[in-house]
Each structure stands twice: as structure tokens, then as C-alpha cells.
């Protein structure tokens, strides 16, 4: 008998009958052909989070984003009207990459009054309008109004900047996020601005990596060091309190013991001395509660991990959050972006608490990254393709199903009808 009640159907998985309970295939994570379809069907249709409004704090603040899955580069900029816009990073004159510094493929950020192309000096304002053409009289009937930067759909939810490459997005951003995610409308992400940012190039399909962050079944095994060895249980289990699915998005909540209530032997010395560690600072400034934060009513609540399709995870702890993004760069590699976000430290001690949490994050993420290279390699042996998933791994099942469903729908739209 588990610690947490399951839905009436007997399991979380059967509560969502469309998921089935059969073993699953991971060919969606090893096939170059599937990846090519996924680029079109997923990454050029879904809303993609590329940053936070704090990253473009002033008029003229901009950053560029290289999005390999869409084979493109995007400029995100705050305009004079404070609206945040996105444009393809391409000069309309001869197709040069418009914004870059030392190397065209490196992402950059800064503040400017206008964008000037390195090649022939064409200029665009912050709305993307073409404002200056060198020797315009040499051109033939050139109307500047026809040659503004090509826009990318861009919208903001609770400070998160999303873009969409679909010429006509199938949903607005709020509709895409759906009620389970937008229930966090009143969560004060904007207060959590002290960030520790991480980046990595990982040798696994983006979904294989995401899978390790949407189930906790692996934690006692792979991350056994999260508990000091003296009190480590050889057959330790982990059971999550609540799973929920809404459209393509997922969440999982776990219970959490307040760290200062644990017996000291359950903590490492560095945790006791700094009052921080694996689950962050022991005490954080009060963050007002959002109805969307703990939809399962787990008590004592520990974390809720929101998996926003396709490649965004927001994991909220007491008074801080961490965010992961997985950007595919091929069928078996991806760029991993992560950050911890805290209330800005008011004291040196608080800053030390944040440092500890940020050191620990990297330690355990490295274990996932190291092992998942092995997972990817073995999946590519292609000798087995029926993988059983437990009820604790329902979200793994869901992510792969949604990715395959989106690809199937894309293919169906392109195949001749009524043949």
C-alpha cells in the first residue's frame, strides 16, 4: 500500500486512459527521420519559451537566440512602447545575419537604439522597420515599408517570453498553456530575479534528458548520494503525491519535509552549516501562494514540477524555482539550459545559501547528463524497443505520446486524403 492515494481507476496512468499501460517505444528518440519531422511538427508549431522579461529590462534591450530545431536565429527586443517583439535575425537586403558580435553562431545580448547590418549598413528600428538604406537612390523602386524585419510571433505569460514559428499559430499563448499552467498567473516569478545560469551540450535526445526530470523513480538509485551514506536505505523508494496532465503539459508534486525538522544525520555537514542544500535554502522569504502551485493538495507540500510542452520545465520549491530548457541540436544531442532563481539575497548569508543550492544543482544534473549519454547510446543499439513504464513514470509515457501524436498529425495533414 502506497503512502499517497491513487485515483479511483487504481493508478495515475489509468486515470488518463489515452495513455495506455503497454510498454513504449523510444524510437522517437533515436531516429534521425523522426527528428526531422519533430522539428516541423513540434518546434515550428508549439510556443517556445526563450527567456524572461528581466532579460530585456530597458527599451532597446535585446538578446539573440539560436534555435537549431527550427534552423534559425531570433532577435528578441523591448521596443520604445515597452512591447517585447521577436524577429528573424536576418537582414532583408542580402540575407546577412543581422545581430551578432564576434562569431555569427554565438548568442549575444545588449542594448541598442537600432539594429545596423554589418554588411551594407542597413538599419532597422526596435519595431523592425527599415529606417535607413545606404544610397537608397541606387535601388529600383525600393519601398522601405516592404523591407522590415520578418517578425516571429511573440507573447509573454507571467514574465516568460514565448515565441512561435508557425506563420499562423494554432493557439494563442494562453490557450496553448491551458488552465493547469495559467493557474500560476498569480505566482510572483517576477520577484525571483537572483539567477544562477547553466549551459551544457548533452549527448542524448532532448526527450530522453527531459525524462530524467519528470520522474523521481530514479532518484534513490542514480542519486543515492542525496542522502548521507550512514542513513541510506538500500531499497529506498520514492512515491510522488500527485500527477496531472492537461493537454500536452504535465505536472508532478511531491511532499517535502522541512529540512530543519530532519535529524542531523540526514544532512551533510555543509547543509547544516550553511542551512541550504539539495532542496535549496531552508528558509526563504514568504512567497504568496498560488492556487496553481499545489493542485493535488499535497501536505506537507514540497515541490511542483511543471513540464510545459515541448521543452520547458519549471520546478517550484518553497520561495524559489529552477527552470530547464532542452533545445535539440540533432536526433541524439541537445543544448541544455538551466537556472536557479531566488529572491535577491539581502545578506551575505542568504547569498551563501543560494551558492550552495546552485552548486548542488550542478552536481546532480551532471549525474543525469553523464548517465543519459549511456542511455542514448544503448537505445541506439536498437535491439529492444518495448520498454515497460511504471505508474511513477506516467509523465515519461505522456511526453513521448504527445511528441508522436504531434508528428502523426503533421504527417496526416500532408498525406493525400481519401486514397
Amino acid at each position, binding site marked *: 500500500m502506497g503512502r499517497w492515494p491513487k485515483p479511483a481507476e487504481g493508478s495515475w496512468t489509468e486515470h488518463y486512459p489515452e495513455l495506455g499501460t503497454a510498454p513504449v517505444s523510444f524510437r522517437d528518440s533515436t531516429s534521425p527521420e523522426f527528428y526531422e519531422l519533430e522539428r516541423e511538427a513540434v518546434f515550428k508549431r508549439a510556443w517556445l519559451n526563450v527567456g524572461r522579461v528581466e532579460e530585456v529590462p530597458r527599451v532597446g534591450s535585446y538578446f539573440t537566440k539560436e534555435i537549431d530545431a527550427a534552423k534559425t536565429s531570433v532577435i528578441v527586443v523591448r521596443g520604445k512602447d515597452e512591447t517585447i517583439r521577436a524577429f528573424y535575425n536576418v537582414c532583408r537586403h542580402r540575407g546577412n545575419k543581422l545581430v551578432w558580435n564576434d562569431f555569427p553562431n554565438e548568442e549575444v545580448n545588449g542594448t541598442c537604439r537600432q539594429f545596423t547590418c554589418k554588411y551594407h549598413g542597413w538599419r532597422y528600428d526596435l519595431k523592425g522597420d527599415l529606417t535607413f538604406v545606404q544610397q537608397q537612390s541606387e535601388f529600383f523602386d525600393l519601398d522601405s515599408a516592404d523591407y522590415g524585419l520578418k517578425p516571429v510571433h511573440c507573447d509573454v505569460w507571467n514574465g516568460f517570453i514565448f515565441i512561435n514559428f508557425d506563420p499562423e499559430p494554432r493557439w494563442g499563448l494562453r490557450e496553448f498553456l491551458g488552465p493547469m499552467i495559467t493557474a500560476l498567473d498569480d505566482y510572483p516569478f517576477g520577484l525571483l530575479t537572483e*539567477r544562477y*545560469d*547553466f549551459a551544457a551540450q548533452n549527448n542524448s535526445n532532448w526527450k530522453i534528458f527531459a525524462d530524467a526530470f519528470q520522474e523521481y523513480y530514479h532518484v534513490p538509485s542514480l542519486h543515492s548520494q542525496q542522502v548521507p551514506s550512514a542513513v541510506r536505505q538500500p531499497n529506498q523508494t520514492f512515491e510522488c503525491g500527485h500527477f496531472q496532465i492537461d493537454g500536452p503539459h504535465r505536472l508532478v508534486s511531491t511532499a517535502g519535509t522541512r529540512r530543519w525538522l530532519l535529524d542531523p544525520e540526514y544532512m551533510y*555537514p555543509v547543509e547544516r*552549516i550553511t542551512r541550504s542544500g539539495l532542496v535549496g535554502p531552508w528558509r526563504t522569504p514568504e512567497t504568496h501562494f498560488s492556487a496553481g502551485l499545489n493542485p493535488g493538495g499535497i501536505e506537507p507540500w514540497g515541490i511542483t514540477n511543471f513540464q510545459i510542452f515541448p521543452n520547458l520545465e519549471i520546478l517550484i520549491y518553497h520561495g524559489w524555482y529552477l527552470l530547464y530548457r532542452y533545445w535539440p541540436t540533432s536526433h541524439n544531442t541537445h543544448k541544455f539550459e538551466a537556472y536557479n532563481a531566488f529572491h535577491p*539575497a539581502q545578506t551575505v548569508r542568504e547569498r551563501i545559501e543560494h551558492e550552495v543550492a*546552485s552548486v548542488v544543482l*550542478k552536481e546532480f544534473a551532471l*549525474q543525469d547528463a553523464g548517465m543519459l549519454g549511456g542511455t542514448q547510446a544503448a537505445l541506439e543499439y536498437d535491439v529492444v524497443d518495448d520498454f515497460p513504464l511504471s505508474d511513477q513514470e506516467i509523465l515519461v509515457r505522456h511526453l513521448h505520446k504527445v511528441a508522436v501524436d504531434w508528428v502523426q498529425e503533421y504527417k496526416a495533414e500532408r498525406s493525400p486524403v481519401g486514397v
Partner: protein
Amino acid sequence: MTVTESRLPSAFAEFEPFAEKWCLATEAERWQARLATPMPEIRRFYDAFSPRFEEAIDYCDKFPLDDVPDDALHLLHLIYSMIMVSMAIEVFGQQKPTDSADAVIDRVAGPVP
């Protein structure tokens, strides 16, 4: 000009022998120092600093975050290195996280100090 320039607050002068190596301002430097240092040497620093770890935090905590004097800032960097090597000593028993294989994750931005 003295031969051994003091970096740390005088109350923590006993850690001057570790200052040259471990007073590192960035996570990238601290991570590299951890990976490149043999475990016995890491342990000497850890064992020496452990008894006064908490006291060192309290010392630095007396200053406003945006106005930490240089000697306390060096001590703070030593505290950050202590956090870094605690992972090797307390958690993994080796410099690298267990099973991290060839994975690399870089901290690319963070607050100062």
C-alpha cells in the same frame, strides 16, 4: 612589500596558506581547482577550514552584501571553495560527481559576490 601578502581578515590568518590556491572569485575557477587537486590535498583544506566554517560565514555576514571589504571578500571566496570541496569530500568521496562520465555543465552567469 612583504613576501607573504595577507589576504584574509586577521582573525582568519591561519588560513593564509590556503588563500593563494582557494580564494577564487568564480565558480568556474573553483570547479577546475576541485577537479585538478588530488583528494588528499582537498582534504587538508577541508579539515583545516571545517572547524571555523560557520564562524567564517558569520564574519562575512556582518557586512552589507554590496559593500564587503576586500579581506572579507577573500574569506567569502574561501567559503565558496569550501562549499565546492564539501561535495567532493562529504558527498562523493572523489572530485567528480559519481557517474557524471564525460558530461560538462558550465555556470554561465550568477550574482557577484
